């Protein structure tokens, strides 16, 4: 199982901040994981419609959407950060 975290506008669009999911083997990159997540519900589809405004972290480390997923405990998806 993979813990998927959503923050800010992504969290609001999906309606929850955290899901425990079991992605298929085809979700081998962050981008492919997002493709799969987008099929889960219309809300997920809407949240991930604009990839240019989507950022990701694997186990707390910022990564590009092209990054290999590996076997992390946690993936976070969110819009660009807007500062402290």
């Amino acid at each position, binding site marked *: 199982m993979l813990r998927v975290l959503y923050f800010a506008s992504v969290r609001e669009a999906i309606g929850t901040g955290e899901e425990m999911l079991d992605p298929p083997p085809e979700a081998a990159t962050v981008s492919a994981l997002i493709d799969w997540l987008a099929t889960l519900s219309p809300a997920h589809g809407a949240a991930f419609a604009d990839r240019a405004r989507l950022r990701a972290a694997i186990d707390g480390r910022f990564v590009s959407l092209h990054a290999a997923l590996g076997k992390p405990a946690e993936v976070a998806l969110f819009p660009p*950060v*807007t500062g402290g």
Partner: protein
Amino acid sequence: MIRILVQTGPIDLAAELALVEADGAGAVATFTGIVRGDDGVQLLDLEHYPGATEAALRTLAEDATVRWSLLSATVVHRVGTMRPGERIVLVATAAPHRAAALDACAFLIDRLKTDAPFWKRETRGGEARWVEARESDDAAATRWARD
């Protein structure tokens, strides 16, 4: 001493500075960010990525400590709902001499703005809206936790 706090309660400036000065420095620099209300903002909500935020702030503080041989580096960041006039962030650096303290303080607040996972939502006229990232900020943000 490195001190990182991410908290929902108010920032106690005097208490934090007493800790910093106790480290025996000759020079202490601080930066305090305060929620501005000048453009009609009634509330500011700050969301963050628990765990990753603290790690990002700690990495920045460690980098600054090594680079400027600091005696101490403190970052206290408030999250949750704030009103105009309230402190949102405090950075304090201590060093034997002034240039190191001042440069490290400026470095920390600059990097913190782009390298830590914070998202701002502003309420104006009763309506809440996420703040859009500026391109310059976002370019810098790709540095976050990468190294």
